[in-house]
């Protein structure tokens, strides 16, 4: 597919954007509003609802605002821990699912908030650098702790395992990065940055799949399963990894890293896609089986990677066999879902 074709497909998918006729006038109106249009820091702006009240009135209003915020925070906490789930949840919603989604929102946000400090870490010896990485690692560990303290709803079982894997690797990457930074090892620092980017990208995507998960129609689910199967079949590098002699991975200068990265992307994208738009109830059981087999394939790929790193030829062969079997099951699971009338 060339650039023109990609452009056409993307434009069709996103659709045309007609600029709203009154948007400019709304922006102008907001600019003229002193609350919005004042060009100074927010801390210097007196809240407009306090103007006209005396000092005591302002303090009372501020106290009221603090109390409201505290009440909201307590409410959020109680909701997250489940106390308020039953009354808040709309009819037909499983509280365990909403609780898991809410936990993912919070942990994903915590990690996102920790990232900017590390982004400004640009030179060796910056005293803010290692503490910022430590804060980020704590955010990752918090997410892992939350997952360990909860049991995922069946719908999220496979993606939960993927998220745990990425979180664990993120901690290792951060620890290795800190060591490389202290040693001023440019190559390892850059490698760590790249690995961190890949892991956090994967996490952000998987978190979005959980948070935005909603049911598909039967037709849409069958199409999605068929499409994901087609991606795997059409993935040349995936087939190479499954078919080639494992010894050739070690013989190649670049090993089989590219093939491993490609098949992992395909498998994780499939799991994420089938969570983001999950199976309608009639496909709940075969859908869960398909996800479990996709996860087994993903784990076999990780086992291949570990064996390759360790130079363990027998382990590599065994993991490749597991991968082949898991992909066979994925194919059969997909076919049975697609064929169901």
């Amino acid at each position: 597919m060339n650039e023109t074709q990609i452009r056409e497909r993307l434009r069709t998918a996103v659709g045309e954007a007609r600029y709203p006729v009154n948007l400019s006038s709304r922006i102008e109106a907001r600019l003229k509003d002193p609350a919005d249009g004042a060009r100074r820091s927010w801390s210097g702006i007196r809240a407009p609802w306090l103007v006209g009240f005396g000092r005591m009135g302002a303090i009372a209003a501020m106290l009221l605002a603090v109390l409201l915020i505290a009440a909201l925070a307590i409410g959020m906490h109680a909701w997250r821990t489940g106390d308020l789930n039953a009354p808040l949840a709309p009819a037909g919603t499983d509280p365990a699912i909403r609780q898991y989604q809410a936990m993912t929102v919070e942990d994903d946000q915590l990690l996102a908030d920790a990232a900017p400090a590390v982004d400004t870490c640009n030179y060796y010896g910056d005293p803010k650098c290692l503490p910022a990485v430590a804060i980020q690692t704590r955010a990752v560990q918090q997410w892992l702790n939350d997952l360990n303290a909860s049991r995922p709803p069946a719908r999220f079982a496979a993606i939960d395992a993927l998220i745990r894997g990425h979180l664990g690797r993120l901690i290792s990457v951060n620890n290795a990065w800190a060591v490389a930074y202290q040693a001023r090892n440019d190559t390892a620092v850059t490698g760590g940055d790249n690995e961190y980017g890949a892991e956090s990208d994967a996490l952000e995507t998987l978190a979005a799949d959980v948070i935005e998960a909603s049911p598909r129609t039967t037709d849409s689910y069958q199409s999605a399963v068929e499409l994901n199967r087609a991606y795997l079949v059409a993935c040349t590098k995936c087939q190479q990894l499954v078919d080639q002699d494992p010894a050739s991975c070690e013989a190649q200068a670049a090993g089989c890293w590219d093939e491993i990265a490609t098949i992992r992307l395909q498998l994780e994208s499939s799991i994420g896609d089938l969570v983001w738009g999950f199976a309608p109830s009639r496909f709940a059981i075969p859908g869960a089986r398909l996800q479990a087999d996709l996860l087994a394939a993903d784990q076999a790929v990780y086992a291949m990677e570990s064996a390759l790193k360790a130079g363990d030829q027998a382990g590599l062969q065994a993991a490749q066999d597991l991968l082949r079997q898991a992909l066979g099951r994925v194919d059969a699971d997909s076919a049975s879902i697609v064929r169901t009338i």
Partner: protein
Amino acid sequence: MSLAPTMMREAVAGDQEAFMLLVQPLLPVAYRLAVGMLRSQSAAEDAVQEGVLKAWRHFGRFRRDANLRPWLLTIVANECRNQRRNRWWSVITRSEAPDDVVDTNASLDPASVDLRHALHRLPHDQRVVLILRFYLDLSYEEVGQTLRISAKAAKSRTYRAVERLRLSPEVIPDE
């Protein structure tokens, strides 16, 4: 003689009308960016409004010789990121739809619906590069300026994003 340097001076000095005259021609492209990045038009409108207000508040720091378009697009793109991160509502308001849920993208063919879903599943940095390059038709140079990376890095990020979107980027020609 171009009026832009005069308007720029006035806008930097705090003239709102001059600022609006400068950004007005850029608003449609900023809105287009927001529509590509977000799921709804109302969210896109919010992102553009907030982005322009932030641009105004920080306009005193804008370098007069810099290019205004990538500067504004950077701010709007960041605003889109903030909008997406504000996810409490998506969880609180979501309820289970029945099996026969009607797809809001019913007018699109299934492949386009899937592509749109896949686009929204990309991390922000990869989604924005695709939207800037393929939906806004920016050059890699301008994509790089907007994202504050080199044109080469913009191109390689685009390649990775296309691959992740599973559009098989066999050919991404040099410019």
